[in-house]
């Protein structure tokens, strides 16, 4: 049973001709277009809402504090929220791309295999027990995410990584940690406000504080994952082959898992359990440009950012004045996509 993540559609391509998805120029154009999508999503998100702001005004009030209502709306509410959405989307997308590689399973996504719920459980624990130490949340969330990943490995390891066992173990771990989260939210409902939005993932009322919480993790995570991309390319050839080529398989797997856990945990710390981004985005990118991690990581980062920014804008405006959590929008997009992948 040859396990190929991509059903390649270029069976008839002559050997002498480089398949479209392998061409450097094509890949760079896709990445360029994704970048434009992020910029577009950013301006669109800043423009729409209860107060409509024309595009030219957005730039004006971004750079000049003229004390106007538009300036206040953009600077204090929409701008940080869009940035935060972008960072969260980027983190989750990269985390998903890395996890799918290290767990050699196309369905690995931080929210499906319990890494996000591990982060959530530990994060909420801090919020409940020591609410004065908010700054510790991402660190504890990382510990939770890492524990979840390690438990999954221990449960699923049988002389190597086995894709089906990974998913089954992940779903079990996810259920366990989610139960823990629900329990906490029930018993301490007075201390954790916005339980519903946490469980679904929401960017509502987030501002600069959250941006600065996640920013360092995003920057470090992005740089380290870009630097790991060649190692990831070797790792997905399979453990035996990778070792033969001179890759330290265990170290690489541990490092990239930790990196994914860090990225997912920092996202969970600021928006709660936002699902499906890490699943949808890397897969769409694979379909577009193939799974060379040197291109997949930056492309996933951009698409993740654009997707969450747009979904959040949608969540904020479509039932205005009622805001729905962005996680609900993601689930509506993600669940059918997940089923599509399963049936493929």
């Amino acid at each position, binding site marked *: 049973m040859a396990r190929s993540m991509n059903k390649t559609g270029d069976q008839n391509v002559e050997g*002498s001709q480089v398949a479209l998805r392998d061409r450097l120029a094509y890949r760079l154009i896709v990445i360029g277009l994704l970048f434009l999508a992020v910029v577009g999503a950013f301006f669109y998100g800043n423009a729409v809402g209860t107060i409509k702001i024309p595009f030219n005004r957005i730039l004006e009030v971004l750079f000049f504090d003229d004390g106007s209502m538009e300036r206040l709306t953009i600077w204090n509410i929409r701008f940080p929220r869009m940035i935060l959405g972008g960072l969260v989307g980027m983190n989750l997308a990269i985390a998903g791309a890395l996890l799918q590689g290290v767990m050699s399973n196309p369905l690995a996504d931080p929210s499906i295999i319990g890494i996000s719920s591990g982060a959530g459980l530990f994060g909420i624990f801090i919020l409940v027990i020591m609410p004065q130490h908010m700054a510790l949340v991402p660190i504890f969330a990382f510990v939770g995410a890492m524990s979840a990943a390690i438990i999954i490995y221990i449960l699923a390891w049988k002389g190597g990584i086995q894709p089906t066992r990974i998913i089954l173990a992940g779903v079990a771990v996810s259920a366990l940690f989610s139960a823990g989260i629900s329990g906490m939210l029930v018993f301490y409902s007075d201390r954790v406000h916005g339980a519903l939005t946490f469980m679904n993932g929401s960017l509502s009322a987030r501002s600069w504080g959250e941006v600065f919480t996640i920013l360092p993790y995003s920057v470090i995570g992005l740089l380290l994952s870009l630097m790991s991309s060649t190692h990831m390319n070797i790792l997905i050839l399979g453990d*035996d082959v990778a070792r033969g080529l*001179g890759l330290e398989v265990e170290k690489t797997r541990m490092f990239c898992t930790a990196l994914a856990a860090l990225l997912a945990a920092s996202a969970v710390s600021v928006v709660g359990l936002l699902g499906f981004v890490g699943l949808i985005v890397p897969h769409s990118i694979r379909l577009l440009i193939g799974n060379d991690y040197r291109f997949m990581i930056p492309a996933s980062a951009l698409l993740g950012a654009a997707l969450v920014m747009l979904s959040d804008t949608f969540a904020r405006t479509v039932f205005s004045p009622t805001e729905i959590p962005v996680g609900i929008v993601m689930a509506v997009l993600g669940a059918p996509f997940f089923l599509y992948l399963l049936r493929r």
Partner: protein
Amino acid sequence: MDQPILTVHHLSVAFRDRRILHDINLAFEKGKVYAIIGPNGCGKTSLMRTLSRNLKPSAGEVKLRGKNIFRLNTKYVARHIAILSQFNYTMSDVNVRTLVQYGRFAHRKWWSGNSAEDEEKVDWALTTTGMQDLANRKLANLSGGERQRAWIAMSIAQDPEILLLDEPTTFLDISHQLEIMELVTKLNREQGITIVMVLHDINHAARYSDELIVLHDQSVFRRGNPWEILESNVLEDVFRVQADISIDKELGTPIFYAKKVVKS
């Protein structure tokens, strides 16, 4: 005579209380071709996986020029020993040229791209294996024989002294089997690469190798040149078959024809 480059000392591998390999001692000399044969479950693949650091020994050592391969820097080992595994399923949708470039991984620093030397080696590997016209094809779209040649191209781009091959011909039809065996022979003759391969086909082993290593019951049962092994009753005992031995008139190598199973 040269010092052997790869040696195996009292090697045992166990999984829980099941013994997988027991007290194996071997020495591989530079430039020779070795074939490991034996019945199913005798430990052939486990031996290959240990030689390629994919199984940890529970006792004993594997040494590359006197140094334990499990202690050496893994990239250093990869510059000397390349392995073609039996099962190469990958979720990568890589094309052949990129795959062969991965063979240069151990020769690069992690931040540097392909050097001119790397590209030269990659082109050489593609030409040697006859894959230059298929270089831009996806691995998934190749036939079994082509795919095997692509993996061999990757292995030799590593520029190894020793090439380990675990049943390189098992899933191929007869002409592709010979194609792979001839390629391996060419690599040995022209590049002086030491070949250690697990083979199912005793006649291929007899025809293409300098020395046969017969594994039986997780240990080395006998080793020797093809005539020594085939003329004794070793294989008939190990595989429990009755066989005729004849001679290949052109090459002078022995031919093994198994006639029937010996009932125990």
